[in-house]
């Protein structure tokens, strides 16, 4: 049993679907996608991406998002709070701008290039007790939440601010294009005719604390695993995702048949969705509702774990299960996919994040009891 319980007490987020948590949740429930098709980013190829409509720079949006979370919290400041960042590309967008303009590394500021650029930037505006940044590709911010869970549950910190952050960069757009996994339309996770993923940008900020008010949702457990299979392909029978979900259940001491909803990683790629569906089916059968919300938000890469954790928290607070969008004919015939938002009593929600290198993380949330 952990020494301390861990709660999500405040959050905020911005992604292609909306600039607020309520807007994002409504967009998911009303099937309003934030994904748009572009033909300017890759020669002769249309790709569907999730871009944030920006009145300000992405750094300014991040700062404002953190400020909103502070305002929603009971904290006066973050001076006793640990900052934990999860990002896949860090300051790559800035590096690209400088390098493509000058053809040289000379003007690249290493402090603003690396993954640590986000913590460096936030430390200019807020005072944190300490900071740490994780970069494990698409599980980055799920692992950041996992670390936050551990420092609170083991009694090291009372509060942790988790940031999931990734911007659209040419590296990720052209990189995923090189792997042949980009869709030209908003993605259709788990559909038999799915054609790939939508690279997107996003920011999600969650405050974790060891106590909560009436609206707080408990982070009950975290499960990690490694596929040990291939750098870019998941284990075909979903062994890695199965193990991370099982480990989350063990960590929380919750049985598989108690899970009401799974927010799947569900990228819309052939390999991920088939493998993850097998993993869910093997562990849970057809009991929990399953959806991927990436057809609305896009795949926000290193930010996805935090964004989808927030969606699970909101689902538990509102007692509304978020649906799939663009899912017409599921490839997996067993899973209990949801097609429309549904109000139903919810106790436990599981969020999956799966990444390059076979890195898997599952987060289990529940209504406090």
């Amino acid at each position, binding site marked *: 049993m952990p020494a301390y319980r861990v709660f999500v007490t405040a959050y905020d987020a911005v992604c292609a679907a909306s600039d607020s948590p309520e807007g994002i949740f409504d967009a998911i429930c009303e099937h309003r996608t934030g994904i748009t098709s572009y033909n300017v980013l890759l020669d002769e190829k249309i790709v569907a991406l999730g871009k944030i409509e920006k009145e300000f720079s992405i750094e300014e949006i991040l700062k404002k998002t953190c400020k909103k979370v502070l305002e929603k919290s009971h904290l006066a400041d973050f001076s006793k709070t640990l900052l934990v960042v999860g990002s896949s590309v860090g300051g790559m967008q800035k590096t690209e701008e400088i390098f493509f303009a000058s053809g*040289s590394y*000379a003007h690249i500021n290493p402090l603003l290039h690396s993954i640590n650029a986000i913590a460096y930037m936030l430390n200019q505006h807020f005072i944190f007790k300490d900071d740490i940044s994780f*970069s494990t590709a698409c599980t980055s911010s799920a692992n950041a939440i996992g670390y936050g869970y551990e420092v609170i549950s083991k009694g*090291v910190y009372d509060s942790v601010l988790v940031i999931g952050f990734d911007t659209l960069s040419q590296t990720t757009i*052209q990189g995923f294009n090189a*792997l042949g996994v980009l869709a030209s339309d908003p993605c259709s996770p788990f559909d038999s005719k799915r054609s790939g993923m939508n690279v997107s940008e996003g920011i999600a900020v969650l405050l974790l604390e060891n106590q909560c008010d009436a609206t707080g949702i408990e982070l009950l457990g975290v499960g*990690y695993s490694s596929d040990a299979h291939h750098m870019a392909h998941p284990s075909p029978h979903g062994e890695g995702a199965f193990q991370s979900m099982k480990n989350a259940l063990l960590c929380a001491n919750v049985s598989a048949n108690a899970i009401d909803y799974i927010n799947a990683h569900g990228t819309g790629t052939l390999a991920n969705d088939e493998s993850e569906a097998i993993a869910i089916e093997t562990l849970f059968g057809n009991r929990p509702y399953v959806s991927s919300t990436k057809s609305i938000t896009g795949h926000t890469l290193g930010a996805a774990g935090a964004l989808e954790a927030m969606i699970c928290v909101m689902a538990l607070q509102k007692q509304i299960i978020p649906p799939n969008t663009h899912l017409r004919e599921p490839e997996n015939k067993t899973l209990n996919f949801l097609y429309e938002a549904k109000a139903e009593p919810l106790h436990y929600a599981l969020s999956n994040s799966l990444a*390059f*290198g076979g*890195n898997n993380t599952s987060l289990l949330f529940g209504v406090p009891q």
Partner: protein
Amino acid sequence: MNIHLEILSSAFMLGEKNVETPNIKELVPQMMVRRRLTKAAKIAVELLNSVKHFEGGRIICGSAFGELGTTANILNAMKDKQALSPTDFQNSVYNTAVSYLSILYRNHNEILTLSSGDKTSLNVLKAGALKALDGDVLLLLCFETLDIPNIEQVNRCITYLESGVALVVRVTKEHATMKLQKSELVGIPNSISEMLYVAQFAPQLERSIVEVVL
């Protein structure tokens, strides 16, 4: 919270230009697999081969700049309007090196990579200490692979362009026998400094126990 970590085994590699990986052919005999490994992955394999008392378990890795070689390949290909190599892209993420370790050694455990600028190796020790409270033996790694063409355009103070450190650790309640500090070796990346100090100093002690303050 103060956590005492016993250093069960340690190893490090430093190269002013690049680090030699003399055993890599023997350690990764399949040529096609070996060719896909990044330099950081090869360093990680060599380091794992050099340490004792780690039979597969959780790994916490750190790097300030990650897979700089593949990142530079990608940037240069895009600047020159060339097609990107899918292998370069999949190998460009920060957790590439330890992911290859998990694949090569069938390690299904939790494997994380963090990146905290100059504080990277200190944070690897902190994260390792936090995780080690669960009672298991962990492998802590850190690396930098900065030996890329034109690195001098941006590097002005790091002499050792390639480096890696490995520590095998577990929690102990016994008194610390060494103080955690930065390595005094000039020209190393700050991001490996604390772990390098531990790896340099630990073999001189009968039992090496370091206090990590979270």
